[in-house]
């Protein structure tokens, strides 16, 4: 078992590795926004795989951690702009949950670029395209999400720099 951990820790970046990003999109705005990007034949990298939910309010943080702990190198969450929610205030919950899960991810040493949430309307195919391009590149720069690395080598595991003794 200890060997097992050891092997995991020395995971190298595999040949022609591609970032794996899971995107959770609300159906009425962001998913449709991605559609309009398609209708307009905009081009973006193939790294973000979309999962459809009716409202971004359905996006349980558990889905995000499940993705990240099962091989995703990044997670994108997108919903209607605040005020435009098809369900009035469904995305208000997203708006409140996402900064919190982000904080927890930071405390666990996950690079901030690996988790992103955006408000993308049905008309904003261009914004969707931009976000996918940006995020894919950022995650590509970071390389694969190597959990054991993060959990074990980040010294103070939660990303905060602590004062040394005597200061």
């Amino acid at each position, binding site marked *: 078992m200890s060997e097992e951990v050891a092997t995991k820790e020395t995971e190298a970046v595999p040949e022609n590795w591609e970032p794996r990003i899971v995107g959770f999109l609300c159906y009425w705005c962001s998913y449709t926004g991605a559609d309009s990007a398609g209708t307009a034949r905009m081009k973006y990298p193939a790294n973000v795989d*979309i999962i459809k939910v009716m409202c971004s309010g359905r996006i*349980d943080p558990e889905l995000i951690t499940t993705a990240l702990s099962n091989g995703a190198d990044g997670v994108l969450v997108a919903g209607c702009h605040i005020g435009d929610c*098809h369900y009035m205030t*469904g995305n208000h919950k997203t708006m409140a949950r996402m900064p919190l899960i982000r904080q927890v991810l930071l405390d666990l040493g996950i690079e901030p670029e690996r988790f992103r949430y955006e408000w993308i309307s049905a008309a904003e195919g261009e914004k969707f395209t931009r976000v996918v391009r940006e995020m894919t590149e950022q995650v590509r720069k970071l390389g694969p999400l190597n959990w054991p690395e993060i959990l074990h080598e980040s010294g103070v595991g939660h990303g905060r720099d602590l004062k040394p003794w005597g200061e």
Partner: protein
Amino acid sequence: MSINESTFGAGNGESGMEKPRIGVFVCHCGGNISDVVDVKRVAEEMSVLPGVVHSTTHMFMCSDPGQTSIEEAIKEHNLNRVIVAACSPTLHELTFRRAVARAGLNPYLFEHVNIREHVSWVIEDKEAATRKAARLISAAVSRVPYLEALEKRHIPIHGAALVIGGGVAGLTCALDLARRGIEVHLTESTDVLGGRMLELYTVFPTNEKASDLIDPLIKEVQSHPNIHVYLNTQLRDSTGAIGDFHTTIVTKKPDGGEEEREIHSGVIAIAVGVDVYQPREGEYYFGKSPAVVGLLDLQAMMNPDGPTGGKLEINGKPVKNVAFIHCVGSRQWPDIHEPQADGKINDYCSRYCCTGIVHAAAEIREKYPDVNVYDFHEDIRTYGRGHEDWYTKASEVGVLFFRFDPHKPAVVEPDPKGESALVVKCKDRLTNGLEVEVPADMVVLGNGLQARDMTTLIDLYRCSRGSDRFLLEAHPKLRPVELASFGLFLAGSVQGPMDITEATAGAAAAASKAAALVKRGFIELDPFIAKVNEELCTGCQTCLNVCPFDAISRDEEKGIAVISEALCTGCGTCAAACPSNAIQQFGFNDAEVMSEVLALLGVVKKEEEEVPVG
């Protein structure tokens, strides 16, 4: 309470039901997909996934032969799950659900995968596109075994309608409903029917007198046996949901007293209309000089039965020069215009003003030939049928047009020479930036439209509103005159700036949608609502806090949460909120979504975990 077998822990329930038999259908979309995605290869790859017993492609899945091929395959291979990978579900999900149903399979045992808008049209690299399509479909393959055979919700509709607002839209809507034999309750907050049209003299494009249009409408409404009109009436309270709304209305009586009624209706049409933008003190010198007026003031002035008896004059002083200014309170710019109380600016186009102005401008030149008319605009949008004719006419009859830069709007100030009340200046882009200055005895502001304060309405019926403060339709194309919460319809400019033509069209549309519902007597709603697992629910009330539609209440008896089928719109917010996983959303339960996530990431399920259907 003590631990016994039943309370002894939530194990991963092992229930041996029939194994999944999945059919995968990949669409070429006549090359739209297959030119980029190697659909044949994808279909082959899918055929070896656990549970898949049939995997094929078709040139046009949505075509009749395409649909038939699905139906036949279901029967032939005895499929109990169907996946179609094609265009966006917004286009054909329903089509395929129906096809599946025709083959005798529950339509909700179907999954639609979008490999056109989300793959072939956006991914250039063919290999990458093919891989992505395969990933998305394999996610569906691991998801579908968890799908449940759902039934649409069947909700009866009470045979009466409530129409809120007695303007042209409300009247039209009420009448259309009444003519279909539906009992209509029409409420109006003021003491007269007719709304804004009462303030108008003539209307474009037909140049008819507004009264000739609105008066007969009012009379017919008042005399129609199916319509009950309540003037001086406000909303007070509302309970119930689609099919069974109970709205409490309050009518002010002449003696100052109040009369309270409860209106029982199956549907509600909202036609409360709009406000006209009130310019700020000093905006284009408004409020500083009586000579700065709005479009509606001009309409009144031109009316022979109006205060000035049809004369154009300011404080008795006849008007020689009139200047119109467009986009006042519309298409505002963050850096230029001060935001309003709610911190927002009106960045939208008010749609009626351009034609309204050119129509009025032309009319002035016709009726008062010795009056000079100047038109200051950043754009002119006479987009409707017959509107452009008024633009042309205005130019013909000698209206002078000046175009200013939206960032440097025209300026109104007192005439230094004192010859006329005011002067209007701008850098005219039509003459390559020539500095122009015209005298004006009257400046008419084309003031735009903005949403009313609808706080009560929104609270009572839980209406969604857009960032422009107008009420928001469920979907601009698919459900253009309905609110997200079912049974509520949008009639006219409550939905956004409209001219009379558009408002009546919207009202009529709302009426026919509502009538169809009422006449049918019941509605079928998507089954994707949330449900509470009583075994797991603790009554922590977290969900009560999150439901946007107050669909969740507390069962004091059991001390748990209950969700109203009629009120739930299926957003799933409560399912995500529940810290005990006690709430699951049909069609999007944890198992379904999780399995997608894992499959996308290529995490293979262990054998003993293989999912039984259901």
